[in-house]
């Protein structure tokens, strides 16, 4: 059954919780509803033309040009951890252990996730996952026009990701989800996934114990076996969630 009544709200990003996830999962596998949502989104993106135009301040362009020439860091504006020099020596053993642990965890996650077949999940499984307490994160297509994703992170560490609008990749490439943590240059993977010919996918993921220590969630394109750290542009990204 098509969630006709909810498609417009879904296109506007105005659904949340289990209902939003259920609609997202349906749209990811239904060509008819996917087409309607795509049209709603295109129409919605034209709505600002109905506003009375206001000119931007003259200095805005100069600032944009200056920063474009400099080349921004990939994680634009994200604060880097400030570690004072006196602490660095004492921090090294701790950081080394931490990084080693994370690398091992990444490998375990990779193996676990690659065992799972990608593709749409059955409805009851989506609903069962969605009933668990958790948080919903919307990833915007910052590096991929028209792409978006909804990530559901259950409090016990499980979760799933519904993606639309990503370009299908050749066999030697894959998409990879990343959780970028606060206060250290540690990044952990949530898994790899591929999208179907329509740019849609649904994937089970493993989420860090707490999103409170995560400052950004991103999706990048990586080699088919996955990477230990992101090497590509952030195609999807979220830096704020409830």
């Amino acid at each position, binding site marked *: 059954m098509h969630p006709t009544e909810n498609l417009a709200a879904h296109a506007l990003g105005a659904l949340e919780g289990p209902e939003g996830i259920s609609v997202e999962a349906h749209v990811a596998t239904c060509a008819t509803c996917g087409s309607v949502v795509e049209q709603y989104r295109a129409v919605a993106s034209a709505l600002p*033309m109905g506003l009375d135009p206001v000119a931007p301040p003259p200095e805005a362009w100069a600032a*944009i040009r200056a920063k*474009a020439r400099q080349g921004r860091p990939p994680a634009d504006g994200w604060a880097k951890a400030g570690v004072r020099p006196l602490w660095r020596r004492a921090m090294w053993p701790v950081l080394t252990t931490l990084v080693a642990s994370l690398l091992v965890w990444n490998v375990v996650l990779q193996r676990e996730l690659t065992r799972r077949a990608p593709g749409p999940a059955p409805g009851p499984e989506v609903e069962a996952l969605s009933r668990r307490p958790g948080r919903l994160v919307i990833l915007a297509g910052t*590096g991929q*026009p028209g792409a978006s994703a909804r990530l559901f992170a259950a409090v016990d560490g499980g979760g799933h990701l519904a993606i639309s609008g990503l370009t299908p990749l050749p066999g030697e490439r894959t998409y990879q989800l990343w959780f970028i943590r606060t206060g250290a240059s540690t990044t952990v993977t949530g898994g790899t996934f591929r999208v179907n010919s329509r740019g849609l996918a649904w994937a089970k993921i493993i989420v860090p114990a707490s999103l409170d220590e995560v400052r950004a969630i991103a999706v990048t394109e990586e080699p088919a076996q996955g990477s230990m750290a992101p090497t590509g542009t952030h195609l999807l990204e979220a830096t704020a969630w409830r």
Partner: protein
Amino acid sequence: MQVGDESALEALYGRYGGLIFTLALRIVGDPELAREVLQDTFLRGWDGRDAYDSARGRVPGWLMGIARNRAIDLLRSRPHQARLREREPLGGLASEPVQPDATDFIMLRRAVVSALRGLPIAQRQAIELAYYGGHTQVEIARELGEPLGTIKSRTRQAMELLRAVLWPLIEPRREA
């Protein structure tokens, strides 16, 4: 822009900078924050130009999506300013004409204005709270004191009306 030509970025800014600033200002209600969104939108577009796929939509829609997401993120991360915005309608900034638009752009703008004016006020309100306010259907229902089902119906009806009028104008532009 996809090949990193700065003049392309400047041309895009000249054409869409005003529209994106207008959108950002409508959402965040503060000129400084709107400028922040404007700058971030174009820089993100610049950074992500290699990944841009014209088959999946035109540049203005892409930039508008980035701007809206960034503006709503800002709005949500600054609850005090959001409350301020809700209490006080935007004032102090006079509408100024932006740079002249291309003909097709003007035609689409007129169609959007006309289509929005043709919506019943309640439907338009539901759309604006969702699109510009970043509110969920549940939040809109709570704010307006209406049943959730009523808000969903209004949203769907409004989007259907807009789609019927605007999609035929947008579709050939996407495929062009």
